[in-house]
């Protein structure tokens, strides 16, 4: 049976177990021997959990173990000279797996023909719609048949184990259903375990991402010293030509400057506009206007960044070049920092405005009333009472928007270009960390050269920067919350 059939069986039997458990508890309580410790549904769920859980765990464990065992079998049957060539090993193993798949399609007659050498395995497999790149070598045939044998055995073992677990769980739990059984506890604990599992997936993924970045980054730093990386002012990684020993220069500073500079202009656009529109929405707009305008502003956050990118490329960039940069004699390129900052700023307006709006609205009405009752105008109230009270939260919103800006890639590629350069001229082409990560990871890759690995060093640095900003933002927001609760 395939895993899908097994899952269906588990589902079916578990449901059956639920009915059985429910039925038994109802019957037991109906005899009036004693009242139940829980409602019948809990007894049903109790049997269901006992039926499904062990079987599922076994299925998952064996599914994880299977490929490992299969690979072990293949390795054990490969000749020594193949094993000695580690770079080709994974290719060889997948070759064997293909042959094994082919052998499964062949009829016994054809297998016999292959064995005595009347036809080649390759032509037989091709006849069954499985073309191979090259002729099948004898040792591959041996390894493939061993693999088939082992995987067939494993399939049977999985089937037996799962069915046994199902039967055991169902019977065991059904026997244990008694009026005094605390069925609720198991159900509650299972729910708890599921919830914990769900949250750990998120946490473990983060840890996994950090670790994968970290190891590759460490590999990079073993080739290029961190001092050269973090304090280098020239970004010139060269191409990772095969056999080339020259590795170029990996100066982080131009990228960092580009990132900061573009984000600065983005914030220059987003913070005032976002904040003012938040103030309008929260304090002045009637609820009707607010209910229409707020979603409209939030639409800005939903536009794909590539769309912003070509808006910048075809409209904003040329406008700024023709009407500002060229007349001022500061640049001749449609790709520049101002364009990227402007367009990115528009994109993050809703991050600032929406969060700030919520925060301003959360300032207690009593403070507004207190100020208005003293004869303050609305704008005086806003500036002197509400904004100071909301400020920590607004700062948090701004920082969140900023980490969004720092991580933005698409707009930068199209609006500011890919030239790594540190210049004060905002009409010059510049680029950011994320753009260079994409650059270094595009095309044919060799994960042993610094040209590629530098992407991971950049990635982890960016991760640390945005993580720092987010932590700062959350700390400020939390502090703000304590003030009113």
């Amino acid at each position, binding site marked *: 049976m395939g895993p899908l059939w097994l899952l269906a069986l588990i589902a079916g039997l578990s449901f059956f177990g639920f009915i059985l458990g429910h039925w038994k508890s109802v019957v037991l309580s109906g005899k009036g021997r004693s009242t139940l410790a829980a409602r019948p549904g809990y007894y049903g769920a109790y049997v269901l959990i006992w039926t499904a859980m062990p079987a599922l765990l076994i299925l998952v464990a064996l599914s994880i173990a299977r490929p490992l065992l299969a690979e072990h079998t293949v390795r054990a049957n490969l000749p020594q000279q193949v094993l000695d060539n580690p770079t080709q090993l994974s290719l060889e193993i997948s070759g064997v797996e293909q042959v094994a798949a082919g052998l499964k399609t062949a009829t016994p007659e054809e297998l016999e023909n292959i064995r005595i050498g009347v036809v080649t395995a390759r032509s037989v497999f091709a006849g069954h719609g499985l073309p191979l790149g090259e002729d099948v070598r004898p040792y591959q045939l041996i390894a493939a048949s061993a693999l088939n044998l082992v995987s067939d055995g494993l399939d049977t073992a999985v089937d037996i184990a799962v069915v046994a677990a199902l039967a055991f769980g169902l019977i065991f739990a059904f026997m244990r259903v008694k009026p005094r059984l605390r069925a609720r506890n198991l159900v509650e604990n299972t729910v708890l375990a599921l919830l914990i599992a769900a949250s750990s997936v998120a946490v473990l993924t983060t840890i996994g991402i950090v670790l994968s970045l970290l190891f590759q980054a460490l590999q990079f730093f073993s080739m290029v010293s961190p001092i050269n990386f973090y304090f280098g002012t020239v970004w010139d990684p060269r191409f990772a030509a095969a056999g080339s020993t020259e590795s170029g220069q990996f100066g982080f500073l131009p990228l960092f400057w580009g990132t900061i500079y573009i984000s600065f202009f983005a914030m220059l656009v987003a913070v005032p506009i976002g904040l003012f529109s938040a103030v309008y929405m929260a304090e002045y707009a009637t609820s009707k206007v607010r209910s229409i305008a707020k979603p409209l502003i939030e639409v800005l956050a939903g536009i794909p960044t590539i769309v912003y990118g070509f808006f910048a490329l075809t409209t904003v960039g040329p406008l700024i070049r023709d009407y500002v940069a060229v007349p001022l004699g500061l640049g001749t390129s449609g790709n520049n920092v101002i364009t990227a900052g402007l367009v990115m700023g528009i994109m993050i307006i809703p991050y600032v405005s929406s969060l700030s709006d919520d925060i301003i609205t959360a300032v207690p009405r009593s403070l507004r*009333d207190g100020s208005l009752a*003293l*004869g*303050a105008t609305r704008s*005086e109230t806003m500036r002197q009472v509400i904004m*100071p009270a909301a400020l920590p939260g607004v700062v948090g919103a701004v920082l969140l928007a900023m980490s969004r800006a720092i991580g933005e890639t698409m707009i930068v590629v199209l609006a500011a270009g890919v030239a790594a350069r540190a210049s004060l001229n905002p009409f010059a082409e510049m680029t950011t960390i994320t753009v260079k990560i994409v650059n270094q990871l595009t095309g044919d890759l060799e994960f042993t050269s610094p040209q590629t690995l530098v992407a991971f060093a950049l990635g982890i640095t960016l991760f640390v920067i945005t993580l720092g900003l987010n932590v700062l933002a959350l700390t400020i927001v939390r502090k703000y919350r304590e*003030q009113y609760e």
Partner: protein
Amino acid sequence: MSAVQTATPFETVRTPDPASRPIKIHAAAVKVTYGQKEALHGVSIDIAEKAVTAFIGPSGCGKSTFLRCINRMNDTIAGARVEGTITLDDRNIYDPDLDVVELRARVGMVFQKPNPFPKSIFDNVAYGPRIHGLARSKADLEEIVVTSLQRASLFNEVKDRLNEPGTGLSGGQQQRLCIARAIAVSPEVILMDEPCSALDPIATAKVEELIDELRANFTIVIVTHSMQQAARVSQRTAFFHLGHLIEEGPTDHVFTNPLEQRTQDYITGRFG
């Protein structure tokens, strides 16, 4: 019973003021509507100068709504509409030419829950004088703040920590801070919306004592749920019920010898 009352045309029972104080605020046929719902059905009352007038009545009777009409705080509520006239020193406060900011500087308000701004004690009190430009110099401002705190009987408790946040004070101190904040803009009238309902008995006693002292210089209107409080601090009492002003008169008279059955029922605890 309620249906009958709201349907019939209404006549407030009035007992004149034996002390014949001058009239500070005169309200005539004030109606307030929130959206479709009429909360006040035409209230007329004269409020005497330099005296404490207490508004009593069960929850939802319209006494706070009427109080908020006097400094036009109802303007800040979306959908609220006020009809009728209210004059302050013979000037209609709902006149379109009247500057509401100026009105609120003359008619201060203290709220049910102490609402100090998240600023220092000093800045809380200095807020009003600053926005109205009442102080010509820093020393002037300091004097206003100190005087206001003294008049609110808070100065001795906070004089060493004027730069600490006002939100760090106890509930009773916070409420007196709010009173000091209201006094600092030298209003003529102070409206108090259940100023003691969030305070413990000791803090309440202090605030009541303060109200009694403030009467010498300000016209005070206080909404309260505590009949003892109304009896202790006020000279005149007005009893509201279901959006009507049922009875108004000298406090001792209203409490000892109410002319209206419903007033009698309410003050003896029969309903409410």
